[in-house]
């Protein structure tokens, strides 16, 4: 028995010793294959860890950008570490006081990271490096701001537009003309969008959809912003108050509801369940199940990847009549320097280079627009996104919008998505259905919107109350914390 005890103790000790003395992998480890070109300068360089998202060709683009930086000088070597759920992992690393030197996040991460003190403010560094506000398109820069300071700078910029399937338009050209619509262009107002959609719809003999002209639930990522295309806002930029139930938003979500009721929620639900994932040939738009869809600047690259011959067009997403346009939601991926990182000075050198030179490389290879006011001449030559001009125009359009950074940005987005789902699924009472019977076209649409207006108003008001309550509480707690810190 004694022998067993001693044996086990020795074994445990051996495991501990091996674990302790085993050399851990480090950024500075030289890989003779991957780092061959940097052999001579390897030990002289400061090695930075850069946690960033992306997959497939977008990751290759980011790697190319980093490689270009590494080749451009011999003092710093940036290691691009592809990281899924980069925001959560970065946050845990920040809590553990062992963050990367540079981190790539989404714009909606800026407030929680900045508020929690996980990022370094960049204003002074920008000033010292000659990066001024007018270097950027203003809205993009604002997405990296919180409480008057800049905490993160752009990497990949985004605007949204309407994608339309030209093959579908051509196939239904005659019907479109008969309806007084031009088959050679995209709809220019929401009202026109509905009319185009009506003509482009195709159904199976049992009434279930085969092709939907337009489906507001696709792709489902922007269900919180429909109100902006009707002139509404989620947050009042002047007062910071939540305004989810202002009349334009109510109008927008009543319009959404008309799609659910006109074609049947159950049928649409089954139809939608047959769609493939975004990055696949079975994407609803790429496969031709949906004729018109709102999507971002990245989408042409994915379409051409999966169906190179597809004929599609891109146009600004239409606004309701009387609402100034063109307009688009503007969002972006951001790059920042975590507080307590090991090499802040070198990290800034990299971030600054990314802003001045890297953005164009990344945008060009990822097929996107960039967040700066001007681009180098080579940026547009042979740019793989043939529809780039639409997205660039939207990025500087005066009516394009951002959702202002608030302390409850994520909660607001989630609650609006829930409100969207509720409005979409909410069943109209039998009495209402009786009133709809026999109506068609514009009359039916108007009646659906009338019938659901009260429910829409209540749902959006509930979101406003709930989110405003949370925002007020957070502001108050932040005030108390600041005053106790002072």
């Amino acid at each position, binding site marked *: 028995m004694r022998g067993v005890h001693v044996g086990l103790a020795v074994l445990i000790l051996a495991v501990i010793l091996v674990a302790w003395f085993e050399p851990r992998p480090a950024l500075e480890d030289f890989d003779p294959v991957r780092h061959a070109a940097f052999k001579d300068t390897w030990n002289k360089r400061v090695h930075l860890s850069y946690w960033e998202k992306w997959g497939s060709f977008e990751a290759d683009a980011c790697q190319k950008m980093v490689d270009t930086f590494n080749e451009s000088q011999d003092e710093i070597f940036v290691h691009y570490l592809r990281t899924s759920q980069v925001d*959560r992992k970065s*946050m845990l690393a920040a809590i553990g006081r062992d963050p990367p030197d540079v981190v790539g996040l989404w714009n909606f991460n800026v407030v929680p*990271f900045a508020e929690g003190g996980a990022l370094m403010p960049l204003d002074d560094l920008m000033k010292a490096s000659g990066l001024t506000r007018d270097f950027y398109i203003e809205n993009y820069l604002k997405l990296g701001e919180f409480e008057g300071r800049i905490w993160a700078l752009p990497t990949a910029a985004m605007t949204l537009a309407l994608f339309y399937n030209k093959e579908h338009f051509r196939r239904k050209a005659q019907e479109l003309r008969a309806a007084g619509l031009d088959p050679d262009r995209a709809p220019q107002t929401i009202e026109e969008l509905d009319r185009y959609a009506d003509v482009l719809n195709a159904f199976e003999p049992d009434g279930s959809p085969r092709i939907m002209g337009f489906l507001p639930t696709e792709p489902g990522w922007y269900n919180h912003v429909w109100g902006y295309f009707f002139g509404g806002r989620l947050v009042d930029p002047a007062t910071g108050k939540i305004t989810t139930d202002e009349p334009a938003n109510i109008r927008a979500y009543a319009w959404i509801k008309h799609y659910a009721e006109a074609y049947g929620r159950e049928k649409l*639900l089954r139809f939608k*369940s*047959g769609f493939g994932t975004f990055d696949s040939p079975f994407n609803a738009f790429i496969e031709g199940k949906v004729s018109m869809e709102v999507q971002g600047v990245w989408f042409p690259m994915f379409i051409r990847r999966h169906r190179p011959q597809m004929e599609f067009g891109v146009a600004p997403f239409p606004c309701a009549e009387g609402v100034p346009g063109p307009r688009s939601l503007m969002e972006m991926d951001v790059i920042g320097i975590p507080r307590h990182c090991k090499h802040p000075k070198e990290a800034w050198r990299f971030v600054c280079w990314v802003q001045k030179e890297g953005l164009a490389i990344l945008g060009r290879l990822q097929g996107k627009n960039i967040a700066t006011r001007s681009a180098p001449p080579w940026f547009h030559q042979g740019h793989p996104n043939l529809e780039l001009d639409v997205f660039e125009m939207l990025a500087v359009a005066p009516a394009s919008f951002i959702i202002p950074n608030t302390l409850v940005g994520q909660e607001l987005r989630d609650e609006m998505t829930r409100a969207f789902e*509720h409005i979409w699924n909410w*069943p109209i009472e039998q009495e209402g259905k009786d009133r709809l019977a026999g109506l068609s076209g514009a009359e039916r649409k108007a009646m659906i919107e009338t019938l659901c207006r009260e429910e829409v108003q209540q749902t959006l008001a509930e979101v406003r109350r*709930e989110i405003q309550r949370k925002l007020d509480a957070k502001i108050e*707690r932040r005030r108390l914390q600041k005053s106790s810190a002072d």
Partner: protein
Amino acid sequence: MANLRRQVAGYGFILPWLVALALFIGYPFVAGFYFSFCDYPPLRSPAFIGLDNYAELLGDAKFHRSLGVTLVYAAVAIPLGVVLAITLAMFLNARIRGQSFYRVIFYIPHLVPTVVVAILWLWIFNPEFGLLNIVLAGLMSAADAWTGLFFGLGAETPGQGFFRPAAVALLAAPALAAVALGPIMPAAVRRRPALRRLLASLAVAAILLAAVALLNAVVHGLLPVDAKKLHSPGWLADGNPLPADLSFAPSWALWALIVMSMWGVGQMAIIYLAKLQDVPVDLYEAADIDGANWLQKTWQITLPMISPVILFNVVMSIIGTFQVFTEPYIMTAGGPEDKTRFVALFVYDYTFQYQRVGYASAVAWVLFVMIVVLTILAFRISQKRVYYAGR
């Protein structure tokens, strides 16, 4: 001295486990309690705010929805799981051929990782291509055909008549199965000529199908919306309640998770089975002498004898139900309309999405207290009903 050395050795061996317990369970448990009284964005130090988090919970509609989802799920899934597991265990306990094989088959699902199970069921529940809806559509159309045949209600499509291949298949299948499975019938039946057996089987199948037709007609009459949906439900994508007229009823999405939770019922059944095989045979023999039938034996002997295991499984189910996380996280992300946002998912969201560790800790503690209260309740209620042979 020898005793002391033995003690030191003993504690030495359990020390790693004790240290891990204290570090990874004990510390978070105590720290979580303290954090629940703090405003604690994970990137800053916790600031004490008293009972504010608990007060906020009272008025938080999202939390109320989450709690509602969890309680409704528990109220349906726990009893359903227990009944199904006991039934399964009783079948496995029967003296049939290939008993070990069936036991293994029913236990295997428990060995599959939850993430894999969730992804598998995502496909099964797909409204358009899912296996479940394909089977359900066939069954419902057969049931409709039979309802039409018996009650003249099913012929919704003009000109289709009464001849429905699905209905015929439904009639033929059990009859053929009955003939094929002749050997498992009682000897008295088996001795009869095959033709008479076939006719008898057909008669039994026709009666069963008439019952199906009647049930289908009743469902159509009482719950027309749900009966219509049952032909091809939206499952995980449908946030509407079932039955449609009961707003507090589980949504179709929640029903899907409840159905899916039955996947792991085999493990519970194996535990019941172990206890069932422990029930003394002489009790059944005595009951046979007294002329007790199967139901009486089950109610008066089997269930009381396995009641300690039922209590154990109920308590474990209560704990497990309040910790459901992986399935909704992967399959629905809490949607549609928060109808599958279990409290565990709520805690996760508030920690990682909204960075409110203090608030999430308060919810976790409320959850803990609820589990403790429900467990005590289960013990109290069962005090007079659980039979321990050793006492």
